[in-house]
């Protein structure tokens, strides 16, 4: 077992412990794993199945089901562009097309279906903060303002 794997498994054990190692907290545990570690690894699934006394299939099924539970490492920054109707009515499709050309490899772009900011559309979430009235110029400014990779 590499040192990195050990550190990861310690972190996962700590998160599960925060939720009392209770199987009914699986979704909350996984949400926290993604929040703090960025994504869920295959080894995390195996470990959580053991800790929570669930089958690997059960944990795997939950991970696969929810959109937020990423199974690959994201870039340094995560940009979520709303694709829902209110934003569509204000040019979200064009913004999305623009966004994919305006970012580099360390930014992961994800779709989201409503950030609840429909009166100030289009909406974009950058590293967990929602921005409204985002046109192409404002999008570029948000991207420029991102700190360099870690």
């Amino acid at each position, binding site marked *: 077992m590499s040192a990195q794997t050990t550190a990861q498994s310690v972190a996962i054990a700590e998160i599960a412990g925060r939720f009392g190692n*209770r*199987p*009914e*907290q*699986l*979704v*909350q545990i*996984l*949400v926290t794993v*993604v929040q703090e570690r960025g994504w869920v690894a295959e080894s995390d699934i195996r470990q959580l199945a053991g800790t929570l006394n669930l089958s690997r299939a*059960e944990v795997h*099924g*939950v991970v696969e*089901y*929810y*959109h*937020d*539970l990423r199974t690959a490492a994201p870039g340094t920054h995560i940009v979520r562009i709303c694709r*829902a*109707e*209110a*934003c*569509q*009515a*204000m040019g979200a*499709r064009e913004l999305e097309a623009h966004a994919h050309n305006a970012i580099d490899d360390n930014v992961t772009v994800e779709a*989201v*279906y*409503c*950030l*609840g*900011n*429909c*009166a*100030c*559309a289009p*909406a974009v*979430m950058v590293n*967990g*903060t*929602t*921005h*409204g*009235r985002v046109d192409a110029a404002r999008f570029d400014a948000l991207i420029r303002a991102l700190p360099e990779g870690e």
Partner: protein
Amino acid sequence: MAAVKVFVPRETTAVSVGANEVAVAIAAEAKRRGADIELARNGSWGACWLEPLVEVQLGDQRIAYANIEPTDVPSLFAAGFLDGGGHDKCIGPVAEIEYLITQERWTFWRCGLVESLSLEDFLAHQGFKALRKAWETGPDAVIDEVTASGLRGRGGAGFPAGIKWRTVADAAGDRKYVACNADEGDSGTFSDRMLMEGDPYGFIESLAIAAFAVGANKAYIYLRSEYPLTRAILSRAIATLRETGWLGSDIQGSGFEFDVELHIGAGSYVCGEETAMLESLEGKKGLVRSKPPLPAISGLFGAPTLVNNVVTLASVPNIVNLGGARYAAMGVNRSKGTLAFQLGGNVKRGGLVERSFGVTLRDIVEGYGGGTASGRPVKAVQVGGPLGAYLSPEELDTPLDYEAFVEIGAMIGHGGIVVFDDTANMAQQARFAMEFCAIESCGKCTPCRIGSTRGVELIDRLIKGEKRDENYDLLVELCDTMEDASLCAMGGMTPYPVRSVLHKFADDFAPRDEA
């Protein structure tokens, strides 16, 4: 002289257009000038088009300054805005903003008014008055008032709340739960969010009243992950209430034990469906359960569970305070009381509008909304989220009444109203409805899981003009199958927006030139 109170909202929409930066700029400028101010972070009044909306307390008036940017702040101070000095962006007292004063704020009356996280401010504005009254009158009297109010579920289904509360209260079981649906997955809606951010203590009070009424000691809040600021505000509110003895055992010496647990969703539209939400709260995939049993009989962990939407619950404190009859006197027909409509998309004055049922869609879209943001003609209005029908401009005179909407093949749902101008391609919107269903289907039932994917393919063919008659008939038949045979509203109602486009905007399916 006492510090001048300056309000800057801490609410997702206001923050999304710079409210935090404005707050920082105001604090810095005040410090630079040695001005004595008290920065208060309220919720939003819901006039989102004016955000960031800064207010200055002058005597018993609050003077409003709209669309403030950080760069405006020095000029605000220079103009003497702390003493009511004139400025280009001053729009007068907030109590005279027509958009707000014409509303009927039954449920949202504290939003914008109070400093959201100040327990002191909450208590000064009738905080926990309804809970105390509930303790005095007892659970049955609370349920009777809710029943008398005619309040129906605001999540979209419109089920009478009083009947549900009575069912849970009467169900056998020594353990009962309240599960508050704060998933607000319907795109185009944000009233739950505004309520929780603007009046978190009032929201938690409503949970306590519901729990007391049905005999539960614990409430779960299922909050969507797309609302991180709401999460932060609720977490702080819950912590404060625990510290001050408003949550926990023997609350304020009443003998009532109650606590709440905040659960965060993981990005699943179907988890807004009540049984899928319960599955998710149990740590599982959000698969829809077959009903019966109803959650009121066998819900969370098999216990009788009251599942209600945020706005449904938050309407109750005033029903307890003022009486169910007062609420029932508002509205029309079987749609009693008020609904907080949420106006978004391509609209000049988007925001939250709480009005009693019976106002027309035109009142909201043109009266409050002022038409499209682009200034172009309205082409379509989608009401009720992604599963709601697209309405044509001719249908704008429909009164907002659950049954009147059902009659025209539409639904009010959670009250989201999204406006499109004449540049919208409605065939693309129909395609999106099917695409969204394909992305979000939980996969348990075939009509939804497979039907949505086939629906996208059929619409693509119609857009290309391939075998139009044949594919049109097939799509209509597919819509019927999905509606009749799906397990929940996801597959069952996706046909609504699709059919509405086929019926009203068929021209948008004509083959495009470049095809």
